[in-house]
């Protein structure tokens, strides 16, 4: 990761510019400022891991990236598009719901608590968005849905409801569901922290495979092993700012900032 200051903006070609670019992103809830100027850049194909103490704004930042939260100041681009706004003549115009939804299709999100649709089978969970949002033909969607289930190791669970699956299985279905929209970027918000320890491995394995296939990923996680093995970069957030960033090896082995040292000494 490199924190550069020149405005990459919309002029940069969508295929070669960074996948995510944040410039001085600020976010407040009421009077509480949660993000206090985040600058970072995620290259195409990069796996960025984000760590930091509870309440440091990791989830909030992920949610800003796919516009589940509106940012108050700064600029955020995904795949060359300004998130949530259109800039014209130096003025920002809010995007319509329909346009925001279109932007989100490029971004897959995996939640800590899975958030599968409990009234649908695993396969229906995966097929829902391609069918309803992209309006793709059913036969094709089903075929791909089954292939995705196979890919996450759950080919035999197509007809199971979420309540009939273990947490690890549910999370893998959730990953397959996000992948079904063929996103350019995947966001993971502590995907394994609601899981029993023996189920964590299966989910991380799926994520590693995804990384090897070249997916651009931003992963909030406490799995330092995963960060070290799979991550291309590691970002340490605290108090709503990026305190330290670099390759996982450097940050973990030689943390520069005392707050990073303190945090790592607790989680390692």
């Amino acid at each position, binding site marked *: 990761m490199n924190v550069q200051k020149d405005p990459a903006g919309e002029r940069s070609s969508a295929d070669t510019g960074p996948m995510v670019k944040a410039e001085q992103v600020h976010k407040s809830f009421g009077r509480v400022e949660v993000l206090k100027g985040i600058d970072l850049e995620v290259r195409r194909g990069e796996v960025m891991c984000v760590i930091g103490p509870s309440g440091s704004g990791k989830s909030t930042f992920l949610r800003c990236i796919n516009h589940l939260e509106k940012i108050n100041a700064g600029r955020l681009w995904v795949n060359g598009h300004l998130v949530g706004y259109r800039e014209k003549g130096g003025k920002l115009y809010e995007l319509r719901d329909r346009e925001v939804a279109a932007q*989100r299709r490029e971004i897959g*999100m995996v*939640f800590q608590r899975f*958030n599968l649709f409990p*009234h649908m089978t695993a396969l229906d969970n995966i097929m829902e*968005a391609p069918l309803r949002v992209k309006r793709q033909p059913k036969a094709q969607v089903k075929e791909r849905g089954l292939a995705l289930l196979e890919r996450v190791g759950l080919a035999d669970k197509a007809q199971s409801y*979420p309540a*009939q699956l273990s947490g690890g299985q549910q999370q893998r279905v959730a990953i397959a569901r996000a992948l079904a929209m063929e996103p350019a970027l995947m966001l993971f918000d502590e995907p394994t922290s609601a899981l029993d320890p023996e189920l964590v491995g299966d989910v991380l394995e799926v994520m590693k495979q995804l990384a090897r296939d070249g997916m651009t990923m931003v992963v909030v996680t406490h799995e330092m092993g995963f960060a070290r093995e799979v991550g291309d970069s590691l970002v340490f957030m605290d108090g709503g700012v990026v305190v330290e960033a670099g390759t996982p090896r450097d940050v973990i082995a030689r943390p520069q900032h005392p707050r990073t040292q303190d945090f790592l000494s607790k989680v390692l």
Partner: protein
Amino acid sequence: MTVDSDVEPGRPEAIKAVPVRHPGRWLGAAVILVLIAMFVHFLVTSKALEWPEQWKYLFSDPVLKGVRNTIWLTVAAMIGAIVFGIVLALMRMSENPLLRGAAFVYLWFFRGTPLYTQLLIWGAIGSLLPTIGVGIPFGPEFHTWKTQELVNVALAAALGLILNEAAYMAEIVRAGIQSVDEGQTEAASALGMSRLQTLRRIVLPQSMRVIVPPTGNETISMLKNTSLVVAVPYSELTFTAQTIYASTYKIIPMLVMACLWYLLLSSILMVGQFYLERYYARGTSRSAEARQRIRFRGGGGGQ
């Protein structure tokens, strides 16, 4: 708990204890049996019930017409009230304070006044609003109808029931929607689904588990509340029974006959409710059989 019949070696002998006697239960059962016997005796021997008279009218044309009217009023009122109730519920949860306020005032009025009184007003709607027109508010009208001709008694009865019931359905729907975890909406948004798609495909189906049971109760009340449209006045089952006994003076037989029809119809509704609840409970427990067992055993605890 089941006890294995094949005894393993070294396992202690199964307990065979003298069970506790419950004389109170036996006494209670005896009282109930005597009461049932007395009731059946009354049904068979009472002269006031006049079963042949009831039988004569049970499937007569006027009664069947009354039953038909009761049924369509119930169905129309509930469908209308559910649709309008969803709209009101969405208004109440809207971010727009004007919509929220309007829905609140609506609920305040329709829940704060008796249905019977509202239906009397519907009967006199012609004097409240002599004409109904399409046009620009406070400006010229393009076309005007006489309310008396546009809103006949059937429509007045249905509208009266719909508008009243919608106020109650709105609260049921709102409770249902609010029972759905916020993560569901977020997951749907993150997949690029629109608000309407999220509501229709994700939120409403899940809220059904909370919405269906009280709505079933509302439907069964509605079946009986249709008898209040006599205020309009519109002729349904009870009103038909009244019309018949006005000339035959067989009051009790006709009212009991009406009760038999209501009981038949509400029994059908209860069966429908059972299957609807089971359908919307899918995916909420680990297996379908587990769900059945809990329902029939009444709690799934010990036997």
